[in-house]
C-alpha cells in the first residue's frame, strides 16, 4: 500500500550507514517551543563529545504538546523520539545513546521503525501509542518524519512517483477516474467531489486554464494546512501537477498562502526551486511536452479570501470581495479563464491516491466521506496537536483516546467546537457523533477545515459564541448588508448578555436574525456566521438563560456575572487567591476559608483565575 512504505521510513533516508542522525521538529509549533535553541545545544554537545552526526530539521509529527521533539537514529537501529526536550536532558539522552548504547527511557515517547534497522526492547512503537493508535496517516504521513527542505527525502518516500505514473502511464481521463473512485471531497470544508471538479474544469472550453491552491487557512484554531506545507511541501506541488494534467491546457498554477505563515511560504519557495532543478516543474517536464510552473501569492490579511471567489479576486490584485456563483471558477476563474481551485490537504492527498489507487483510498472512511481527514486538536485537552483519522471516527475517541481527555483531570468535558467561525459546538450528548461531513452537520456543527477546540466546564458557552461572532463581524468584507449589519446587531445582543444586560426575548431575536443572515448573505462567510450562535442556543439554552435571567455565568468567565463568593465546601484553604488580588479584598489565614470583601472588590477576576478548584463563583 502506498502509505506503509512512507510511515515505515525508507532506509534511503539514512544514507550514511555509520553516522547517527538527529531529527529536530522545526515546524512553527516546534520553533515556538524553542527548537532553535535546542538545536544549538545539540550541536554544542556533539562538538564537546567529538561525535559526528547529521542534524535534520523536520516538520510537525502532530504531537505539538510534546514539542520540542528530538529524534535520534543510531546506525542500524530504530528511530527514538524524545519529548519536551530541555537543555538539562540532552546530556542524559546522549549518554544513553552514545555511551551506553541504549535509549533514555525517562524521556522517550516511542520508537519509529526504519526499514532494515532493528528495534530497541522496552519501548513502544509509534503506532502502538495511544496518540497514534487510532490514527491513519496518509496526507500527513511524511510530516515530522522527513526533512521538508530536502527533495531527496521526498523522493526516497515515493515522492514524484505519482507524477511519473501520470505522465507516462495515464491519460487525463484516467487521472480523473481515479480521483472520482477515491471519493475524495474538498478538505477545505466545502466537501465537493474533487474528481467531479476536475472533470468540470476539463470540460470547460478554453486553451488557457489555471490551477490554484487555497492555502489561506484562516479559521482560528486550525493549522492542518500549515503543518502539511511546513512538513511536506512537495506533496502539494505534486497534487497541483496532477490537477494541471487532468484539466489540460494548464501551464501555470498559483498558491495563495496567508501571510501569517512565513515559514510555510519559505519552505514552498525552496520546494519549487528544487523541483525546478530536477525538472519536475518548468518546461518539458521530464522530457514530455507538458510544461507547468507555480507562483506563490501571499495574502495580505483578509479572512474572507479563504472563500474561493474572494481568493481569486485577491489573486488578481483586487479587493478580496466574493462574487455570486455562477459563474463557478471552473467556468470563469483567474483572468476569466477556467480554474480549478483546491485546498492544501486535498492536493496533498492526490499523490497517495494516484499511487495507491482510488479504491484503496476509498477503503477508509465512512459511506459518504471517504478516506482520512486531518484535525487540529486544541483547547482544554491533554494531547493537543495535529491528527489524521479515518472519516467517521467518533468524536469520543478523538477527544478521549487520541486526545487523552481533559487537561485538568477534575474539570469535565463540556463541548467540542468544530469548524471554527462557521461551525458549532457539540455537547456531551453528541460525543458519539461519527465525524464526517454529513453527521457533524446533523449534530449542528460542520466538519469545516478540521479545527476541533475542546472546552471544559470552566469555559463559557455564551462567551464562545460571542468570540466567533466578533471574529466574523471583524472579517465581514462589507459587501452585502445581511452579513455586515446583521452580524453587528447579533454581536451587540451577545455582548449585552455577557455584560449582564440581557433581556427576555433576546434569544428569540438572535435566532430570528440568524435565520435571516443565513439565508440572505452573498457568500459562505455570512451564510455560516450565525452557526456558532445557533448551535450553542440549541444545546446550551439554560446557560444563555442563566446569563439573561439569573445574571450568572456558570463557567465563571464573564467578569460582570460572577458573584465573587467563596464556596466553603470547595475551598481547600490553599490561599492562592489572596496574593493575586490587586485591591487587597481577599482575606485568608492559613487553614481558613478565604473571604472576599465585595465593597472593595473591583471584579477583575484575578482570584477566580487563580483558584484551581473553582471555589469562587
Amino acid at each position, binding site marked *: 500500500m502506498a502509505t506503509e512504505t512512507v510511515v515505515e521510513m525508507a532506509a534511503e533516508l539514512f544514507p550514511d550507514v555509520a553516522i547517527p542522525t538527529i531529527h529536530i521538529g522545526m515546524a*512553527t*509549533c516546534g*520553533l*515556538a*517551543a524553542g527548537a532553535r535553541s535546542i538545536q544549538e545545544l545539540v550541536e554544542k554537545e556533539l562538538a564537546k563529545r567529538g561525535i559526528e552526526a547529521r542534524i535534520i530539521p523536520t516538520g510537525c509529527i502532530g504531537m*505539538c*504538546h510534546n*514539542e520540542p521533539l528530538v529524534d535520534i537514529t543510531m546506525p542500524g537501529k530504530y528511530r527514538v523520539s524524545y519529548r519536551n526536550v530541555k537543555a538539562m536532558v540532552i546530556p542524559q539522552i546522549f549518554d544513553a545513546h552514545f555511551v551506553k548504547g541504549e535509549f533514555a527511557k525517562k524521556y522517550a515517547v516511542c520508537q519509529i521503525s526504519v526499514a532494515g534497522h532493528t528495534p530497541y526492547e522496552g519501548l513502544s512503537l509509534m503506532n502502538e501509542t495511544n496518540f497514534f493508535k487510532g490514527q491513519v496517516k496518509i496526507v500527513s504521513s511524511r510530516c515530522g518524519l522527513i526533512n521538508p527542505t530536502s527533495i531527496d527525502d521526498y523522493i526516497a518516500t515515493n515522492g514524484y512517483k505519482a507524477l511519473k505514473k501520470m505522465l507516462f502511464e495515464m491519460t487525463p481521463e484516467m487521472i480523473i477516474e481515479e480521483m472520482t473512485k477515491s471519493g475524495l471531497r474538498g478538505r477545505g470544508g466545502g466537501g465537493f467531489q474533487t474528481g467531479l471538479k476536475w472533470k468540470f474544469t476539463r470540460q470547460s472550453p478554453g486553451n488557457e486554464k489555471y490551477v490554484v491552491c487555497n492555502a489561506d*487557512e*484562516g*479559521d*482560528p*484554531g*486550525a*493549522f492542518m494546512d*500549515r503543518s502539511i506545507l511546513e512538513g511536506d511541501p512537495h506533496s502539494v506541488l505534486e497534487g497541483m501537477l496532477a490537477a494541471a494534467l487532468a484539466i489540460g491546457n494548464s501551464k501555470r498554477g498559483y498558491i495563495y498562502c496567508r*501571510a*501569517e*505563515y*512565513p515559514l510555510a511560504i519559505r519552505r514552498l519557495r525552496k520546494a519549487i526551486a528544487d523541483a525546478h532543478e530536477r525538472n519536475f516543474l518548468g518546461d518539458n517536464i521530464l522530457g514530455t511536452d507538458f510544461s507547468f510552473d507555480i507562483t506563490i*501569492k*501571499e*495574502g*495580505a*490579511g*483578509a*479572512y474572507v479570501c479563504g472563500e474561493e471567489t474572494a481568493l481569486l479576486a*485577491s*489573486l*488578481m*490584485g*483586487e*479587493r*478580496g*470581495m466574493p462574487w455570486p456563483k455562477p459563474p463557478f471558477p471552473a467556468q470563469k476563474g483567474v*483572468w476569466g479563464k477556467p480554474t480549478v481551485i483546491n485546498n492544501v490537504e486535498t492536493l496533498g492527498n492526490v499523490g497517495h491516491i494516484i499511487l495507491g489507487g482510488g479504491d484503496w483510498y476509498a477503503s477508509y472512511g465512512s459511506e459518504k466521506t471517504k478516506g482520512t481527514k486531518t484535525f*487540529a*486538536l*486544541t*483547547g*482544554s485537552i491533554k494531547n*493537543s*496537536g*495535529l491528527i489524521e483519522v479515518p472519516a467517521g471516527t467518533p468524536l469520543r475517541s478523538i477527544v478521549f483516546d487520541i486526545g487523552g481527555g481533559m487537561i485538568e483531570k477534575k474539570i469535565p468535558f463540556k463541548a467540542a*467546537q468544530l469548524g*471554527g467561525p462557521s461551525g458549532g459546538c457539540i455537547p456531551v450528548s453528541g460525543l458519539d457523533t461519527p465525524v464526517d461531513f454529513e453527521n457533524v452537520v446533523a449534530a449542528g456543527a460542520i466538519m469545516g477545515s478540521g*479545527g476541533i*477546540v475542546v*472546552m471544559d466546564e470552566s*469555559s463559557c458557552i455564551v462567551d*464562545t459564541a460571542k*468570540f*466567533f461572532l466578533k*471574529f466574523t463581524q*471583524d*472579517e465581514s*468584507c462589507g459587501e452585502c448588508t445581511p452579513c455586515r449589519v446583521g452580524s453587528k446587531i447579533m454581536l451587540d445582543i451577545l455582548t449585552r448578555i455577557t455584560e449582564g444586560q440581557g433581556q427576555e426575548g433576546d434569544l428569540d431575536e438572535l435566532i430570528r436574525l440568524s435565520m435571516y443572515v443565513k439565508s440572505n448573505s452573498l457568500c459562505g462567510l455570512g451564510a455560516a456566521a450565525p452557526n456558532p450562535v445557533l448551535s450553542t442556543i440549541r444545546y446550551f439554552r439554560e446557560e444563555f438563560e442563566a446569563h439573561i435571567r439569573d445574571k450568572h455565568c456558570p463557567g465563571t468567565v464573564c467578569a460582570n456575572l460572577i458573584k465573587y463568593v467563596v464556596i466553603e465546601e470547595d475551598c481547600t484553604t490553599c490561599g492562592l487567591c489572596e496574593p493575586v488580588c490587586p485591591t487587597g479584598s481577599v482575606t485568608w489565614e492559613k487553614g481558613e476559608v478565604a473571604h472576599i470583601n465585595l465593597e472593595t472588590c473591583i471584579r477583575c477576576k484575578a482570584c477566580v*483565575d487563580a483558584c484551581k478548584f473553582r471555589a469562587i463563583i
Partner: protein
Amino acid sequence: MTKAEHGAALEITDEQIDQICEEFGNREGSVVQVLQIIQEKYGYVPAEVLERVGDDLGIPHSKMFGVLTFYSQFYQEPRGKFILKVCVGTACHVRGAELLVDKIKENLHIEAGENTEDMMFTLEPVACLGSCALAPMAMVNGNSFGKLSPDRMLEMIHQFQEEEASENKESVSAS
C-alpha cells in the same frame, strides 16, 4: 522624499517605485504584490508612494486606496521596530490571550494597533497564528513564542528593550 520615522525604514525614491512596478510587468493584477514589497522595505505604505504606484500601473487612486484599506496587513502609518503579534484565536482565547494583551497595554501604554512613543513597539492582536497547541502564543518580527504567560510576555519586552539599548551603544561606539 523624507525619511520615515519608522525604525527599519529605508529611503525609497520614485525611480525605485517605478522599478518595482516594472518588475511585476506593470499589470493591474500585481497591485497587492507591489504594495507588499514596498511595505516590506518601508514598514508602511505612505500616501505619496501609493499615488506613484497607481500612476505607474494606470490604476485610479480611489481603487488603489480601496485595495490598501481592504487588507489588514497594509499600514498607512509608520510602525514600531518590534511588532508584537499576539494571537487571540480560539485556542489562545480560551487559554487567556486577553491577559497577555492587557499586560502589554498596561506596561507600554498603548492600545491595539498603536505604537509606543519611541516607535519601539506596535501591539497587534491577530486572529490565529496556527500554533494552537502552544497557546497562548505570540509572534514578534517573524519569530514564534509559545506557552506564554503575562509575566513571560513582559520579560520578553524587557529583553527586546535591552537588546535595542546595547545595539545602540555599539553603534555609537563604532562611529
